[in-house]
């Protein structure tokens, strides 16, 4: 457990606990099992996206196109399900994953081979992929009646109050944790992020790693697309996945991942998702006036990030002083 909660995640963990405690104290209904399940279900999709984004950010890149990628996968799944109602669930899921992976690979190629800065490449594909969502759906909506029950069941609470949405999120988190903490590939991600030139000089396949991490992000966005269809039933071209990239990036940075690459933790990202989920649900359950909700969310997130930065800077200072000459990495300022 201690391993999971490394020192640098303590700050954000404290924020999660504090938010939960404050909300529960004000409104006892907030702390009910049913509501906790609702919070978790509400961030299932975010979970999957944020973990992918964390790995992309760790390589000193960013993927702004994930909302549109999710949209393409979800829409592709929905259209196939509508036009060919007998398609088995596995095939539908594979279609969504394939669409997402393809989109991710294209992003990766643009960034790693064509050397277009990630923020620009994915800002461009954000618009292009959204255009494709409209194109394949003929600017339309696939209604819930055309979505097979097997897909919808992904979001229906089965036994013990835990839906597949949450289980999928947890499985993704565990795999990502194992990959980043326990494998060579994981360590290479951070090596590429902390110093791409040095990584290349040391013979690491930087191009391959970069394409790989974008492909993984795309696949996860595809998976998120499956979950989206399951959770929301109706898929509409102009609203599916809109703005999800910003929420995912927010979760990643609130979770303490350095936006300039080289660091990042799955546990921190999960805690970041929880902060967003708690705020989103908590402010509503507390019946905070809707006009105040967004400002409060923005302010609390800013406070969390500022506090985290200040705490971490002090820790680093202390570490640097204790090692005297040791400068592990400097936060790019």
């Amino acid at each position, binding site marked *: 457990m201690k391993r999971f909660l490394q020192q640098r995640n303590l700050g954000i963990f404290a924020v999660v606990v504090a938010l939960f405690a404050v909300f529960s104290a004000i409104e006892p209904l907030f702390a009910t099992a049913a509501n906790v399940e609702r919070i978790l279900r509400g961030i299932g999709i975010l979970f999957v996206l944020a973990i992918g984004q964390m790995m992309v950010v760790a390589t000193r890149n960013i993927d702004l196109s994930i909302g549109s990628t999710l949209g393409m996968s979800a829409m592709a799944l929905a259209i196939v399900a509508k036009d060919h109602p007998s398609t088995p669930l596995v095939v539908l899921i594979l279609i969504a994953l394939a669409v997402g992976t393809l989109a991710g690979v294209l992003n990766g190629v643009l960034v790693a081979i064509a050397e277009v800065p990630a923020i620009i490449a994915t800002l461009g594909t954000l618009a292009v992929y959204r255009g*494709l969502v409209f194109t394949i759906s*003929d600017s339309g909506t696939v*209604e*819930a009646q055309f979505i097979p029950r097997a897909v919808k069941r992904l979001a229906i609470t089965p036994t013990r109050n835990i839906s597949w949405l949450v289980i999928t999120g947890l499985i993704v988190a565990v795999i990502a944790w194992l990959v980043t903490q326990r494998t060579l590939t994981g360590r290479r991600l951070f090596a590429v992020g902390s110093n791409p030139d040095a990584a290349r000089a040391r013979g690491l396949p930087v191009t391959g790693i970069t394409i790989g991490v974008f492909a993984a992000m795309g696949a996860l966005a595809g998976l998120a697309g499956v979950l989206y269809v399951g959770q929301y039933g109706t898929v509409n071209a*102009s609203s599916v996945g809109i703005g999800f990239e910003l929420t995912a990036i927010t979760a990643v940075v609130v979770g303490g991942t350095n936006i300039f690459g080289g660091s990042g933790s799955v546990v921190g990202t999960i805690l970041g998702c929880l902060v967003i989920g708690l705020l989103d649900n908590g402010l509503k359950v507390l019946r905070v006036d*809707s006009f105040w909700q967004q400002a409060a969310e923005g302010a609390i997130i800013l406070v969390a990030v500022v506090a985290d930065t200040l705490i971490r800077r002090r820790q680093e200072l202390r570490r640097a002083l204790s090692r005297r000459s040791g400068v592990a990495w400097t936060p790019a300022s």
Partner: protein
Amino acid sequence: MSGHWKRLGRFTIVATLALAAASCSSDDDKGATTTASSTTTAAPSESTSAASTVDTTVASSTAASTDTTADAPSGETLQVVYIPKDTSNAYFNPILEGMQQEAAGLNMEVTEVGPASAEASSQIEFIDAAIQQGVDAIAISPNDPETVVPSLKRAMEAGITVIAVNSDMNPEGRQIAILPVDFSKMSDFLLKLTTDVTGGAGDFAILSATVNAPDQSAWIDGVNEALDAGKAPDLKLVDTVFGDDDADKSASETEALLTSYPDLKAILAPTAAGLPAVAQVLSNSSQKGKVQVTGLALPNSMKSFVEDGTVKEFGLWDPKTEGVVAAHLIAGLIDGSITAKAGSFDVPGLGSREINADTQVIADEFLVFDADNIADFDF
């Protein structure tokens, strides 16, 4: 399916254009010359795909752009642009269908063009383009009552007939507005739906569209007034939340309502994008059947929820009727048989429609959908 391919074709053409344009950017002469050739090859295919609607406008628009009169000479095809709130909202498809169905008989051509999202100022560029094309009429479903008014005033100054369809706006921005039903009866209708699904007693909450949605705000005020007047003495409105017509936001608002009000009997969602989202949450929830869901939505978007028992009854109207009325209204305004004053006019096949003192036309009556009749409707 052919629609998909047509759009995909146009998309790829535009995409190659973009690439052709950007390939200019090489910093030597060689690059520039190669681009010049690629542009010329791209151009003809582009004009065949996109200019088909434009070619026909030429004659009538030169008449309009001289700014003498809005009357198009008889024999010319009237060019009408319909601008929905956004292009992917299925609600507006039947309106376009209705207009296009009548267009042939009225020597009219209706083109739909609109923004990707229902953001308030995003409709302006399409209004400006329509003015530049010199179309004969603009029919618009405004995203908000004020933002598009300056542009529409400019359109009217250029001699273009402007009507609002489906919701009204600041009257300075249009000649006549078509409303789908009599909105003054809306609060009674919504309370009737709520009473039907709850048995007339208990707590209920409203999930609306955006905080700025003028129609929904007026309806909800109406519901509050009706409740204050004791029209449904045992119903209690406990909260009003806003789902922004977004699946994600509507769902999280619904989840929060379920937590905050354990005794909730019903959620009323008078918004076609919000109601399916609310129904989806309850359909997935253990409270399905305990919390009733009703409101306004297209029947196609609700079929699965009526089938699985989440929704007993909900309502709307047939948006297609608005389109039919709109086509005849536009034709009448242009040929002068209808003026933007209180009065009445005839819609073939539907009968007489009245223009009220606020220069609004009411197109149709409310419809109620339930398990017995929903299969009869396909929109």
